[in-house]
C-alpha cells in the first residue's frame, strides 16, 4: 500500500506552507475529477472518464498518491478494452483511495 509517498512530497518545490497549498489544491481538484469519473460511469460517458482518469493519474502522482495514480492508470488502460463493469469497480476503488489520501493529508500535513 502506498497511499501518500512522503519522499515524493519532500522533493516538491516550495516550503511547508506551499506544500499545504499544493495538497489543498490537489484535494479540491481530485474531488472534482472523481465526481467527473463517477458521473461518467452513471452516464456511460467514456470520454469523460478517460479524460478525468488521465488528469488524476498525473496529478496524484505529482503529490505521491501512488495507489490512486495506479488505479487511474488502470482505468485509462481499461478504456481501450471497453470493460465497463470493471471500470465502474475501479472508479469506486479510486473514490476509496482518494479518501485515504485525504485523511492521510489531513493527519500528516493539514492539521
Amino acid at each position: 500500500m502506498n497511499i501518500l509517498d512522503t519522499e515524493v512530497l519532500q522533493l516538491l518545490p516550495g516550503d511547508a506552507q506551499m506544500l499545504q497549498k499544493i495538497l489543498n489544491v490537489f484535494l479540491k481538484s481530485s474531488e472534482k475529477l472523481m465526481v467527473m469519473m463517477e458521473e461518467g460511469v452513471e452516464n456511460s460517458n467514456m470520454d469523460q472518464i478517460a479524460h478525468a482518469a488521465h488528469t488524476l493519474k498525473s496529478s496524484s502522482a505529482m503529490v505521491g498518491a501512488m495507489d490512486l495514480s495506479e488505479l487511474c492508470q488502470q482505468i485509462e488502460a481499461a478504456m481501450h478494452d471497453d470493460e465497463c463493469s470493471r471500470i465502474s469497480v475501479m472508479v469506486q476503488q479510486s473514490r476509496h483511495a482518494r479518501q485515504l489520501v485525504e485523511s492521510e493529508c489531513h493527519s500528516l500535513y493539514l492539521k
Partner: protein
Amino acid sequence: MLIDDDPVSLLVMAESLQEVGFAVIESNDGHKGLTLFAEQHPALILVDLQMPGMDGYTFCKSVRSTPLGRDIPIVVVTGVDDVESIERAYDCGATDFIIKPIRWSIFRHRIQYILRSSNAMQSVQRSSNLLAEAQRVAKLGNWTWDLNEQKLFVSEESYRIFGVPKVDPGVFHKLLMSSVHKDDKKGFDIAVQKASDGEASDYAFLACLPNGESKNILMHLDGSAEHLKSGHRIFGTIQDITERRKAEESVRQLAYYDSITGLPNRDLFKEHLSMALHQAERSKEKIAVMFLDLDNFKRVNDSLGHEAGDVLLKAVSERLHESLRSSDLAARDVADMNSSLARLGGDEFTVMLSGLHGIEHVEMIAQRILERIAEPMMLSGNRVCVSSSIGIAIYPEDGEDLDTLLRNADAAMYEVKSQGRNGVFFYDNALRQQSHDRLELESELHTAIEQDQLTLFYQPKVDAETCQVLGFEALIRWIHPERGMVSPIDFIPVAEESGLILPMGAWVIKTACRQYQAWRKVTDTEFSVSVNLSAHQFADEHLMTTIRDILIETEMPAQFLEFEITETVLMQDADAAMKILDQMKVMGLRVSIDDFGTGYSSISYLKYFPADVLKIDREFVKDLPHDEQDATITNAIILLGKALNMGIVAEGVETESQLQWMRDKGCDQIQGYLFSPPVPPERAEKMLIDPFSLRHD
C-alpha cells in the same frame, strides 16, 4: 507561461520556476493561453498535451502560425511512455519535451537550458537574417568551395543576384561558370587558380544570366582565409556592381561631356586625341586637329538671351556631326578616317580627324563645316547667321604631342580671326598650299581628260645591230594650257589617288592602238607599240576585259601590242601576276618586265613569268661602261634573259660607247636619247619611214 488543465501541475511548476526567479503566467486552457501569449509575449511556453477544449498539439500549431510565435521555445509535457505523442508534438512545432513524472530538482535547470539555447538560436537566426539583409542591400552573396570534396555552399543572395531560385549548389556552380562572358573567361580562370593556390584575388566580370540579363559582377576569392584553415577551401563573395557601374558611367558622363550639346568636353577630347596620337604613331597616319570658334556668338547671346545661345550651340554641334558623316565623304583616302567632336567651352569647338593617309581632304571638310554652319537658322523667331573660324594643325607636321597640336590649331584659328574671320587656316601655310595645289591638280586633271589635254609621246626601241626601229614605248604627257607640259611624276600620283588612273590607263591603251593602226598605213615594216601598266591598273579585276574590248574596237593585232609592267608591281602579288600574264599570253599579247633589277629580286620567279622581254633599268646603264659594278650587273641581266630566251632592251642609252658595250654583250634593243627622246606621233612616224643610219665605231 504554463498551460495545464490540472491546477496541481500548474501550481507545482509555477512554484518551481518562481523559486529561481521566473515570472510565470498560468492558464488552464489552450484558448486562454493563446490570448495571454498574444498579450504578454512570454519567453517560453510549457504546455500539457492532453487538455479539454484546445489540446496541446493545436495550441502549438496556433502559436507557430503567428509571427511572434515562430521562434518561441515550446516545451510539451507528456507521459513517460508516450513516444507517439512526442513525435506528433514535434510535427506541430514543439521545441522540446518534459516527461512526467517530473523530477523537480532538474526541472528548472531543463527550462533554463532550453531557454538559453533558444536565445542562442534566435540570436544566430537574427544575425543570419541581418547578414542576409545586409547582403541583399549590398547585393553581395558569399560562397565557400571545398576543394577536397568539390562542394559548394552558396548564400541566398548569390542566387538572387543570378536571378535563379535556390537550386542545388552544384547546379549553381555550373551556372556561375557558364555565365562568365567569353572575354572574361581567361581572367576568371586565373583568379580561381590564384585562390586555389592560397592567394586572395578580385575579379570583375560580365555575367550573362539565364534570364538574358547581363550583370557586372565583382568576385572576391580568398583561399587563405585564417578561419578556414581546417580544410582546403576557397572563400568568396560575389557582388552585383551593375548599379555601381552605371553610377560610375553617369559620373563619367557628367565629368566628360558637355551638358548643353552632349558633346565630349575638353578632358575627354584630350583623351581621344591622346589615344589617336598613339595609334597614328604606330600606323604612320596623320591627324588633323581643328579649332572652331563662332564669330558672332556673343552678339546672339547678348541680343537673344542665353537660352537662344544654348539652342545655337546645339544646332552647331548637330551641323558639325552632319558635316562629318562619313557616307558623304566618298573619296577613297578618307575611307579609314575617324572623327571626334568636342565642345571646349563657350563657343569653341574642336574636331579631330584621325586615320588620314593624306591631308588633301582636310581643307575640303573644313570648308564644308564652314558652309554648313554659315547656313541661316531660326532662333526664337529670328533668322540668325553665324560664321565661324577654323584653325587646323596637322600631326605630325605641326606638332607631335597633344599640347603643341592644340596650341597650333588655336593659333591658326586666331590667324583666321585676324584676317577677317569666316575662314579656314592651316597652321603650316606651306602645307595648306600643298594640299590646295593637289586638289586643284585633281580637278584640272578631270578637265584635262574631258578636253583632250592628254597626249601620248612615243620613244623608239631600236635594233642594236641594224638600228632599225622595232617598236615604240607610248608615254603619257599632259599639255596644260597655262602650265605647259606637266610631268607624269606630278600628276600620276594624283590620278592614282583619285581613281582617275583607270579611265586614263584605258585611254592610253586605246590611243596607242589607234596610233599603231594609223602608222600601219604608211609603212610595211613590222613594229610594235608598248604601254605601261600601273599597279592600280594591274590590280583592276576588269583589266583583261578592258584590253579585249580595246583590241576588238581598234582591230589591233595582239602580237604587236606590248605591256610593260615593272618588276615591283609583278612581285606585289606574284601568284596573281602569273595568272594575268598567262591570260595575256593566251590572248597573244607581248609582255615585258620593266625596270628589271631595281625592285625586289625576283630571279627565282622569272622563269615562271611568261614574259617576252627584260628591260634593263636606266640606273644600271647611265654609268656604263666605266662603272665596273653596273657592268657586272648588266652583263648578268643580259645573260639571264638570254638563258630564259627573252629579248633584252637597254633603257637610257645616251652615248655611242654605251651602245657599243651593249652590242658587245649581246643586248638586242636600245632605247634612249642616243636615238631619240619621247616624241609626238608625227615625229615618230618619220622614224618609221626614215630609219636611223647605222652607227658603228
